[in-house]
């Protein structure tokens, strides 16, 4: 059966099929094909292909244009870290094409290329490259500052990134909490062995692998590696207690092993952020192959040896036709064998271990020739480099370790002595060895990790040493080239930065942006350090690395945000409000009716007949115990000892600094039973305030404070006919004599027992506040509306309530006061009883009263009653300075003119004083100071 050709594109003339015959260990499913488009042209690949492996199999070499110079870029690592394979997939930008698996129907395109990937006009930047010096943006666009918006607009068009269309679906980003005993970061041979050992020791394990399958480098190895891979995978699968997370990454390590893990490739979920709290963390990420820095090193066709091995062995893709290989290690040697096996002509092997080197790669859209160190020039379309490894030590750095440079191995290595007790390392990051040695070492690490996580008694597991292999130090050959292919930072840029005085690696990083691209320095850091060290005449060890901070890998904002968890609160009457056209108002977490279409008409209804408002959010605290009066005396500025059963009193609370904290009424329901109300927004704070004083300052007092805000649905029945309405639904005596103003009763309303009725008035009208056991709130509300139909009852919302209370001159804490408003500035002078022995805030209020220089809360009316000065409008003194501000203002339907409250300097606070109000549009209007009560100052309407 012929299986060739298996990958092809349609509509292209120069199609080249580079798919190899089936290979042991390949990860593609040749029985099925997957269709997708690349820049509008249709291609096919197989399940298991990445976007780039499928394109490479079809002969494509260029996948993107570079960040700054728009140079053509191809495949380098054939892994998640590949800097030249960022693509746009549908409406998703910055997709790592060498990692994202092919799925049917993908629409893949190159990013920020115009008119095409092949002929990108912005490549003209390359011609201007000599003028794009290090720190070009900083130097060039700093002045004139006013032009920055224009600069920004132009520069943004050059940014090498994809697009997020405005109508992009928000996606589903999940979150999960987990508490595994052991997290293993890395699913290669060491990670698998450590996970199995830890699980066998009784630990629950999360095994996290960045690639789509477990196995690490064993996946693209020879028969021996594949056998080991098969065995280890079988052990993982057979071992209960291991949760395998592939295409996932341990993004960071925080104190006490708080470990965020980002999980991708989930069904129905874009990404999931797992917040894991692990007993122990085993860091086993393996090693990352390091690129070589030389002239032409960014040309498509210059690839790492591991990329060759992945392409050939995982995806059966022939990486080129004629290759030059620069090798300094066994992985490079193995790549040579793979190339030959893939029918690639190996034109030259340059062995760095023998001191051989290359000078440059030449070509335009890709490698065409390689210039060797001896001056010879070899025609080739592929240059493979195998010059060393970088140990990805980020998670160890974040754990407090500080890996040091080891010239013998030419890489930074961890210092086990500096690792915290709950962090261990295994695998290539520690040392080399054959698979057996690595597994033996990791097995011991896994057992020790379990022992520490489970706090098992006994001696520590003896972890064998893992040998390290010598490796020549090869970083760059001094001919130029790029250090950071993500950011288009060249070797010359590093040298120039050093010459300009940026001789610290941290400064070089920020000045040149080297290591700041999507790869986060995993490919670039060591080369950057090496070139800087050479430029400054220092050593790599002395130069050190930049700081590896979280996150280890880029994390989407969606993953960090997760599901929107913003609690909202509803009253029991909310469904009724929705059905009757209430316009919602978000008040803290509460969703309240702002109005039902016409707030002015709602005000008029309350003033003339009767209205209902849902005031469920009013804070309510149940107070019980013999010492409640003492607590009230302590917290409120007024007196409470003589409050009788059945009576209600208004009170104001201040903090120790005398600043108004909250207000409300408290009713005495029984000898030792009170119900306190607070502002809607202050309910939680007042509860905590009361508990704080009881638990810390007066623990001997016998008082229980229990929040019952939503145990009651609260309805304010307000208006001259409110008594008439309520009488239809209760047998309670509502008469003016028997149930007078500022009284409280309990009884049955609309068939619901245990209701609490307060005869109070925030609106200035005769009104009853009815608190109903919450589950019956909707029932009582509906009964009130039905019973009052002939009276013209109508619901009113928060806006009407605000107008009504402003007409009556009632202040709102937090609106007519602020975080600096002390008691005597809140219009409650007569309430503050300085003759009480003690109460919270008294010393400050005594001082405020004695000084008598404080602002006052006053009424305010503009002379032109049609003008409503917006709240927060400034009030000017005679010299034009700020003398106060408008705190509340509305058009009064009752008076037919604007009214307001204001905080005003003492000198201007006398009734009748005329002041200037500066409106936000700059106009000045004249207003007159009045008493605070605009409607019914004698209170005749509410005391009937």
């Amino acid at each position, binding site marked *: 059966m012929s299986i060739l050709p298996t990958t092809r594109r349609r509509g292209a003339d120069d199609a080249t099929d580079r798919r190899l015959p089936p290979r042991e260990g390949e990860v593609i499913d040749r029985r099925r094909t997957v269709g997708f488009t690349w820049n509008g042209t249709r291609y096919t690949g197989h399940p298991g292909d990445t976007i780039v492996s499928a394109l490479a199999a079809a002969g494509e070499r260029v996948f993107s244009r570079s960040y700054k110079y728009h140079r053509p870029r191809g495949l380098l690592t054939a892994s998640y870290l590949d800097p030249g394979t960022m693509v746009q997939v549908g409406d998703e930008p910055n997709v790592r094409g060498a990692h994202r698996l092919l799925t049917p129907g993908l629409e893949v395109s190159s990013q920020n290329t115009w008119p095409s990937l092949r002929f990108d006009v912005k490549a003209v930047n390359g011609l201007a490259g000599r003028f794009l010096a290090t720190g070009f943006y900083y130097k060039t666009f700093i002045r004139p500052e006013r032009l920055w918006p224009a600069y920004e607009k132009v520069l943004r068009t050059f940014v090498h990134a994809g697009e997020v269309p405005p109508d992009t679906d928000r996606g589903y980003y999940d979150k999960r909490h987990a508490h595994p005993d052991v997290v293993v970061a890395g699913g290669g041979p060491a990670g698998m062995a450590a996970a199995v050992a830890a699980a066998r020791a009784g630990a629950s394990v999360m095994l996290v692998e960045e690639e789509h399958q477990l196995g690490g480098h064993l996946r693209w190895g020879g028969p021996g590696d594949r056998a080991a891979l098969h065995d280890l995978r079988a052990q993982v699968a057979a071992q209960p207690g291991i949760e395998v997370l592939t295409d996932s990454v341990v993004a960071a390590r925080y104190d006490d092993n708080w470990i965020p893990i980002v999980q991708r490739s989930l069904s129905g979920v874009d990404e999931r952020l797992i917040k894991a709290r692990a007993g122990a963390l085993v860091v086993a990420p393996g090693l990352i192959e390091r690129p070589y820095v030389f002239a032409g090193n960014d040309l498509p066709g210059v690839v790492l040896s591991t990329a060759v091995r992945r392409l050939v062995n995982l995806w059966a893709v022939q990486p080129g036709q004629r290759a030059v290989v620069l090798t300094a290690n066994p992985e490079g040697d193995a790549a040579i064998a793979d190339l030959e096996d893939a029918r690639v002509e190996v034109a030259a092997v340059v062995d760095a271990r023998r001191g051989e080197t290359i000078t440059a790669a030449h070509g335009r859209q890709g490698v065409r020739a390689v210039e060797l160190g001896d001056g010879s020039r070899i025609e080739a379309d592929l240059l493979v480099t195998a010059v060393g490894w970088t140990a990805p030590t980020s998670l160890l750095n974040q754990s407090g370790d500080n890996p040091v440079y080891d010239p013998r191995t030419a890489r930074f290595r961890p210092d086990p002595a500096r690792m915290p007790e709950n962090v261990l390392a295994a695998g290539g990051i520690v040392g080399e060895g054959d698979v057996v040695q690595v597994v033996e070492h990791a097995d011991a690490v896994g057992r020790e990790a379990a022992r520490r996580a489970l706090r098992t008694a006994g001696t520590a597991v003896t972890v064998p040493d893992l040998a390290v292999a010598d490796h020549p130090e090869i970083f760059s050959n001094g001919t130029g080239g790029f250090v950071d292919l993500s950011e288009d930072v060249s070797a010359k840029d590093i040298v120039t930065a050093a010459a300009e005085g940026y001789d610290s690696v941290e400064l070089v990083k920020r000045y040149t942006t080297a290591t700041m691209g999507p790869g986060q320095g995993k490919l670039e850091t060591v080369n950057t350090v090496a070139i800087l060290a050479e430029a400054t005449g220092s050593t790599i060890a002395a130069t050190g690395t930049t700081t590896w901070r979280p996150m280890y890998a880029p994390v989407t904002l969606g993953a960090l945000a997760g599901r929107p968890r913003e609690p909202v609160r509803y009253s029991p009457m909310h469904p009724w409000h929705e059905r009757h056209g209430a316009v919602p108002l978000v008040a803290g977490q509460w969703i309240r009716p702002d109005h039902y279409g016409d707030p002015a008409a709602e005000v008029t209804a309350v003033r003339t007949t009767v209205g209902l408002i849902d005031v469920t959010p009013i804070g309510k605290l149940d107070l019980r115990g013999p010492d409640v009066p003492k607590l009230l005396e302590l917290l409120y500025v007024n007196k409470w000892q003589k409050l009788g059963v059945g009576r209600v009193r208004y009170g104001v609370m201040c903090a120790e600094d005398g600043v108004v904290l909250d207000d409300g009424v408290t009713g005495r329901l029984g000898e030792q039973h009170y119900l306190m109300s607070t502002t809607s927004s202050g309910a939680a704070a007042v509860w905590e305030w009361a508990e704080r004083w009881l638990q810390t300052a007066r623990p001997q007092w016998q008082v229980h404070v*229990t929040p019952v805000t939503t145990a009651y649905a609260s309805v304010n029945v307000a208006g001259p006919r409110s008594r008439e309405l309520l009488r*239809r639904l209760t047998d309670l005596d509502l008469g003016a004599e028997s149930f007078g103003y500022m009284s409280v009763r309990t009884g049955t309303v609309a068939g619901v027992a245990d209701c609490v009725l307060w005869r109070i008035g925030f609106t200035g009208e005769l009104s009853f506040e009815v608190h109903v056991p919450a*589950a019956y709130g909707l029932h009582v509300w509906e009964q009130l509306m039905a019973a009052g139909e002939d009276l013209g009852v109508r619901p009113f919302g928060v806006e009407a309530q605000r107008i009504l209370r402003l007409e009556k001159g009632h202040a709102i804490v937090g609106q007519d006061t602020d975080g600096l408003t002390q008691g005597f500035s809140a219009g409650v002078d007569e309430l503050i009883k300085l003759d009480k022995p003690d109460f919270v805030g008294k010393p400050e209020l005594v001082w405020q009263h004695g000084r008598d220089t404080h602002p006052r809360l006053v009424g305010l009316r503009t002379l032109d009653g049609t003008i409503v000065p917006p709240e927060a409008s400034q009030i000017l003194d005679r010299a034009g300075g700020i003398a106060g501000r408008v705190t509340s203002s509305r058009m009064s339907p009752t008076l037919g003119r604007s009214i307001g409250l204001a905080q005003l300097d003492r000198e201007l606070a006398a009734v009748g004083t005329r002041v200037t109000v500066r409106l936000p549009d700059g106009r000045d209007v004249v207003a007159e100071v009045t008493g605070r009560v605009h409607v019914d100052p004698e209170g005749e309407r509410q005391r009937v």
Partner: protein
Amino acid sequence: MSETTAAAVARSPIAASPATVLDGWEVSARAATGASTLSDETPLAKVLVRAPFDGASRKALGVRFGRTEHTDVGSGEVLLVGSAPGEWLTLGAPGTAPALRTALEERLAGTGEFTSVLDLTHGRALMRLQGPAATTVLAGVCAIDLADTVTPDGTALRTSVAAVVTDVVRDDVSGVRSYLLHCERSSGQYLWDALLDAGSRSAVEVTGFRGLGSAGSAR
């Protein structure tokens, strides 16, 4: 009183659809067929006891902070929950709150301690998340370690669930993992929706009121 009012029906903060009336409460008429379910248990009587943390009252109640007990305090079977230091939540059958409160007051009367007994039936929402997916769903909205070794059956704790202060009570039913989630009433619908959202990938189904008896008697 001149008006004849309709019979009062108690309503949970969680919308019931389709709805039916049970013991004077409007409840969901759904009957799930799946293994993992979410049910609204708000109609259960909820009575709160406040008393010293570790004195005679605790001994009289027989439950310490952080633990639960299915028991009978004289008003029928209840679930007694040590919900916070010096605070006990008692769950009983719908409509039994007055009797439960009386029974608790009688039990505590002889302790000589300062105690309070409050009926919070109307002030709280209560739901039960049950089945094999319960842990997965809860782990999506709650940071607590739900392993048997840390929070075994009979555990009670107060924590954040989907950013709402919630009493989480592990109350397994016939060996099936089950959690009671108890929060302030006005956040009930939000918490319910958040749990369904977290359970949307775990095939969690809404089912009707289960009641305490079915849970407790099956233990």
